[in-house]
């Protein structure tokens, strides 16, 4: 098409046009002023668009056609686990018995929903090697918040009020420190050693009576499994702290090793990563946490328990409280439940084995073309560095943008922070080998282009609906809404 810019829905508006029609009011109408005093009533009408149903459908269809997604192509986005989202899950979530039930119905009238929650909690406990689950958290970061609150409540409950520090590796995801701040914890950073893992010696020096706990992903954000995890756990536990497992990387270990067995006390899972609930352009996700028996009493609630064949809600005895209304993202975690049931124990193990095999295959296929900072077996993802390409005046961002020209989503870039020009690739287990091979070929081609024709990269993308966008101006002079 000659003009690719799609107008805003507001720019399609025509006064008086209608897009939806209510049934006629079938009760006797009372003048509004008799029901609500004039001064409460709106004067200024909001500038909602006035468009027909066709215009709405066409607007969003057109928008969707300039958007990338898993359904469109490969998404090697490290740390995000962009695997296939089974379509049948959408059918299940749309059943009136799930989509159209109210959170305040009598418990006896929602036993199916409660049973589902109960089973899912149990299954997640099984998978994590821990004891008790809450499904309240709406995303990974929300799970972190919940988990840290539980840790805090645990210490407080024991009268151990002076523990104010959480230790976090430098490679950690930004939500880890941010979540600590949200519960009033101070962050103490532990550096990575030359193998990309927690520097145990340094750690020993960091723990102490102020240590509330340690947050870790394992495999970590470099895609590497921290072999010293047993020592780490011991060090932290000995110091009186607890271990928090950021489950964003759990796709590597399903059915292979359980966080509980590694020594973790609290785990969150990003169901929208590991358990394949779709990302929806940024959410909704679900970030349930699972904790050890000892910590169960502090979980945010309500949680579901089973009582004489009936399922019912209850608040854990010393619950930190509610962290969202109702019961979390029910229609999201329902899909994770479906995912677990479809796979079974064999299937889940195969998920992780395949994800890890894929990642190693791809890493080895690319390491001659891009610098590999940690040359060891990786788990479900791996981190390259664009530093070789820098000598041609090419940045990692340019490599990422060039990939868009080839019809791929870019990997995660500039994360983790402890690798310069980081390129983090996660193929996931649901990609066919052919797709991986094509991607590898394109990555090699781009490495060659970087050398022979760096312009191609620095001016990329050229074959996308828009070219590179001016982010600096956007932040300096923010325009956050359309105005008439």
């Amino acid at each position, binding site marked *: 098409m000659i003009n690719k810019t799609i107008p805003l829905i507001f720019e399609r508006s025509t006064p008086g046009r209608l897009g939806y029609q209510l049934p006629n009011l079938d009760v006797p109408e009372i003048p509004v002023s008799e029901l609500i005093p004039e001064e409460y009533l709106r004067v200024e009408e909001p500038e909602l668009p006035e468009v027909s149903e066709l215009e709405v459908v066409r607007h969003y269809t057109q928008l969707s056609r300039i958007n990338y997604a898993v359904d469109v192509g490969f998404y090697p986005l490290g740390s995000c686990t962009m695997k296939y989202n089974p379509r049948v899950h959408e059918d299940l979530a749309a059943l009136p018995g799930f989509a159209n039930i*109210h959170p305040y119905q009598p418990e006896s009238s929602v036993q199916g929903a409660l049973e589902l929650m109960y089973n899912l909690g149990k299954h997640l406990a099984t998978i994590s090697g821990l004891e008790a689950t809450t499904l309240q958290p709406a995303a990974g970061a929300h799970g972190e918040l919940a988990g840290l609150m539980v840790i805090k409540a645990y210490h407080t409950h024991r009268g151990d009020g002076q523990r104010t520090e959480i230790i976090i590796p430098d490679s950690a995801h930004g939500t880890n420190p941010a979540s600590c701040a949200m519960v009033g914890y101070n962050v103490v950073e532990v550096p990575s050693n030359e193998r990309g893992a927690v520097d145990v010696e340094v750690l020993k020096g960091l723990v102490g009576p102020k240590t509330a706990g340690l947050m870790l992903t394992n495999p970590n954000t470099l895609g590497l499994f921290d072999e010293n995890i047993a020592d780490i756990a011991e060090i932290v536990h000995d110091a009186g702290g607890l271990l928090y497992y950021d489950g964003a990387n759990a796709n590597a270990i399903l059915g292979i090793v359980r966080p509980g067995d590694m020594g973790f006390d609290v785990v969150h899972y990003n169901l929208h990563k590991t358990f394949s609930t779709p990302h929806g352009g940024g959410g909704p996700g679900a970030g349930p946490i699972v904790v050890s028996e000892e910590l169960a009493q502090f979980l945010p609630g309500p949680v579901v328990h089973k009582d004489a064949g009936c399922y019912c809600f209850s608040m854990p005895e010393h619950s930190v409280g509610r962290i969202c209304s109702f019961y979390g993202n029910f229609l999201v975690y329902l899909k994770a439940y479906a995912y677990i049931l479809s796979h079974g124990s064999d299937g889940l193990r195969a998920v992780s084995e395949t994800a890890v095999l894929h990642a190693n295959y791809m890493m080895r296929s690319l390491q001659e073309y891009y610098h590999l900072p940690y040359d060891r077996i990786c788990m479900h993802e791996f981190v390259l560095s664009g530093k070789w390409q820098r000598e041609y005046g090419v940045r990692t961002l340019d490599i990422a943008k060039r990939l868009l020209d080839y019809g791929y989503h870019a990997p995660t870039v500039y994360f983790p922070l402890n690798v310069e020009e980081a390129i983090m690739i996660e193929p996931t287990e649901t990609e066919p080998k052919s797709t991986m091979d094509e991607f590898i070929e394109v990555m090699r081609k781009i490495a060659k282009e970087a050398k022979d024709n760096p312009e191609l990269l620095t001016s990329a993308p050229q074959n996308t609906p828009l070219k590179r966008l001016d982010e600096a101006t956007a932040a300096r002079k923010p325009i956050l809404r359309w105005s008439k």
Partner: protein
Amino acid sequence: MRYLPLTSEEKQEMLKTLGIESVQELFEDIPGDMRLKEDLDLPKGLSEAELVRHFHELAEKNANLTSNVSFLGAGSYDHLIPSIIKHIVGRGEFLTAYTPYQAEISQGVLQSIFEYQTLIAEITGMEAANASMYDGASALAEACLMACAATRREVVVLPRNLHPEWEQVVRTYLENQNVSITYLAFDPKTGIIDLPSLENIDWDEVACAVVQQPNFFGLMENIKPVKKLVQEHGGLLVMAVDPISLGLLKSPGELGADIVVGDGQSLGNSMGFGGPSLGFFATRGNKLIRRMPGRVVGETVDEDGRRGFVLTLQTREQHIRREKATSNICSNQALNATISAIYLSVLGKKGFSDVAHQSLQKAHYLKQRLLQIPGLSSPFSAPSFKEFVIKGAVNWEEINLRLLDQGFLGGLSLARYGLYDLVLFSVTEARTKEEMDNFVNVLGGLVG
């Protein structure tokens, strides 16, 4: 396994490339004694047909609102949902996209969210809105924390007629940051904030005062006195609103609020047993806008000068600021925000105001009819919108079970909050006169 494409030949090829014999070698970094020796204790994997059957069985154990007529509300509402919404957001490009970090290939999501932000700003009368929060309750908690940060104060004022669960969520968030809460009583006659109780507060310490409009009892609050007091003393006015009410009621912007939050479920999202929904969050003034938690989409241009959209003001966020971020929120409720944007777009000016108007009319119709039942009365005198409280000396939870036998989901018994004789009804434009008349008849028989 239908979701795992790897064939055994391909596996062999890959192993060969890696120079190993078996996948197990890739897990050598994991200490052997930690590794699972046996299968996880989970049921066997199911085929699609078996999975669907299992879910149908579970779903049938729930009484749904397609087959039953409901008067439940209290934060989750069965407003009509235009059919097109699910067709649009069911498109893979919306459903299976990641957060739009690669703007050049994510304009669809980015523009939708930009439009969402505009729509929320318009209905709330504010300058800017973020790209969504988890839900209304957590958005309110974040608003309080933001007010504390902006005012450098540590007291938040909450009314007792705030939704009890929202109050609990706010409490959970605030307690962990050592922010203290002062409560405002409500007048037992009117049901709205007790004006004299405003006097007992040391407003100079208050970061913000929260008002829910309509309040938990469905009643219209008088915002002015609170606004005056809190703002005169350098605090902020935070309003938690039912977005549907904004088709009729003065916008928080018009009323002078500093931060507005609410739950967006009623804007086209299914109830789904409470989630996913979304929290909306709007504010005004450059200073407050730059303190907003959560993602924001902004307008910009590409290299050819064409308009485009990007995630912006990211320095507020945890990717960059880590522990100094305005919030830890990362994934939000983007698809629900898209849903709400479509809802508001297809309803348009007239539809949006019609929904509010019909909900108001129908709620008052039911209220009048219920008050004709002997033994039932109206405990609060303030004007109400689409929800209202009825008083009656019966066990409402038991009544509800009996109503269910007849296909009705009655109002929410407030016994769970210690308000024993009270029940909260909600009526939306989706209810018909016939349904309400039938309900009144049945309820009359049970109460009488």
